[in-house]
């Protein structure tokens, strides 16, 4: 039991509530602004409370092409979803196999392979962006989902985490599997995967958010509207030329863009915390 002074409890809650409110304010303002008309937002201060244009704004966003881009928000959100899922599932799939090979097999150059993969931790895509663009273009993958996804899964974070996870499995498990006569693939399917479910879910949450929120790479790799993502479209909306930014649409699009990853984090809070802190180990 902790030692506490009852008087402090009220203060604790108060401070936490203030913190939560301050942290929520930016999104709250976006939410309220997205329910006002363009005219309301062109003069005066951003409103703190809802207006009556919410339905109209969101409907316009979802049903009509976005100004400047010519594709609808649904398409953009769909592109983001494809990219986020592609990165999360792709990375988990190739990392799972690689980590499994490194932990459960002995073969020449095992350490070398491990280090080759490990080195990728040192150089995020932002640093090798110029030549990466060249390589992807050489394969004709600019403006394709594959081109948007592949360079971002060429990193070892997931391999690393899964290796840690597999190493922590009890070695009796392996013996049991051997008694069962299980080959490598059955061992993976029936023993390793079920026991790593939590870690895989945690990894999925982190990678999904990572993929959804990508900026620089899709900006370059998907520079036609057909493959643009929701995050990229926001920059286009706000930094529009020759006109005032359509803030009512920009804020509505912000809300739509932020929603999916926030829902994932809130719904999978347990895995999210696990996923983050796993990365530390």
């Amino acid at each position, binding site marked *: 039991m902790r*030692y506490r002074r009852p008087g402090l409890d009220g203060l604790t809650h108060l401070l936490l509530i203030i913190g939560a409110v301050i942290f929520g304010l930016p999104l709250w303002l976006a939410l309220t602004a997205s329910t006002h008309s363009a005219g309301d937002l062109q003069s005066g201060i951003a409103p703190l409370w809802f207006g009556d244009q919410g339905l109209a704004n969101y409907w316009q966003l979802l049903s009509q092409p976005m100004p400047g881009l010519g594709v609808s928000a649904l398409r953009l959100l769909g592109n983001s979803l494809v990219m986020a899922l592609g990165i999360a599932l792709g990375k988990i799939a190739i990392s799972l196999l690689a980590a499994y090979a490194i*932990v*459960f097999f002995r073969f020449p150059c095992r350490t070398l392979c491990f280090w080759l993969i490990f080195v990728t931790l040192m150089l995020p895509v932002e*640093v*090798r962006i110029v030549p990466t663009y060249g390589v992807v273009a050489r394969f004709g993958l600019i403006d394709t989902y594959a081109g948007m996804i592949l360079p971002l899964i060429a990193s070892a974070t997931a391999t690393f985490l899964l290796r840690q996870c597999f190493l922590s499995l009890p070695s009796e498990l392996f013996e049991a599997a051997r008694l069962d006569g299980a080959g490598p693939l059955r061992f993976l399917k029936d023993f390793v995967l079920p026991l790593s479910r939590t870690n895989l879910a945690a990894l999925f949450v982190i990678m999904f958010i990572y993929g959804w929120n990508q900026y620089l790479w899709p900006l370059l790799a998907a520079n036609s509207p057909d493959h643009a993502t929701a995050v990229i479209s*926001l920059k286009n909306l706000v930094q529009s030329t020759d006109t005032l930014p359509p803030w009512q649409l920009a804020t509505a699009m912000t809300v739509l863009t932020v929603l999916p990853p926030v829902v994932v984090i809130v719904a999978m809070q347990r895995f999210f915390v696990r996923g983050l802190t796993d990365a530390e180990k």
Partner: protein
Amino acid sequence: MTTFERHSLTPWLLLAPQLVVVAIFFFWPAAESLRQAFYVQDAFGLGERFVGLANFQHVLASPGYWHAFGVTALFSLLVAAGAMGLALLLAVLADRVLHGARLYRVLLTWPYAVAPAVAGLLWLFMFDPVLGVLTHALAAIGVHWDAQLDPGQALALVVIASIWQQMSYNFVFFLAGLQMIPASLLEAAAIDGAGPFRRFFGITLPLLSPTAFFLLVMNSVYVLFETFATIDSTTLGGPGGATRTLVYKLYEDGFVGRDLGGSSAQSVLLMILVGVLTFIQFRYLERRVAY
């Protein structure tokens, strides 16, 4: 861990997808980066010339590079201090409460899910010269907010947006760290007559220091790379280069300036910097494992 013997091909098949992806999309571009750092090339790639270390000399001799280095360091320091300080405070508070702890955790961690670019835009909206709520609040107390012209205010804008975004990450770690501190330790100290502040500074903080150190490195890495999006969606590196970080400069020189040699040389320098950071982090992890 015991391993499968007598399977010589299987491990290679399992490793193949990752090795292929890493070879094509990591090692190839990285090698290309390394090679281009020693060449001067025109934008269209019609001709190139070996120049030895000249690109590195140009980069290291240019005041702009060192300015960007200074901006990055200051930026990292401010974000680390702000995001870690706030996170620690809120984590200590959240660790104290018995009721609603889970709700508070959700309410304080969701900004992690917001893309850095979007975080930048949300704060840009609050600081908009015409309709920004904060612009008007500041005007009411006599502060003229103009982040397009005032270097300090521009840096403040991206720092605040980054702290807002990065706080939740730190919060998760501090809270996890706090919950791992054995209650018996704090109890014993309390019986010895240590007040809450002495308990915090004498026991909690030292035990959290490895976490804090880890977060310091992670926050620096965050500022180095992730804040590119925050900057590009708000200040575009301005005014007067006040928010141009190393990665932003690399991008500008490579993609806007099309100076491939110069930007590749910067890539190599960044590689070295990240290598040092990774090494430090690795050493720290080793030490922790030894506990």
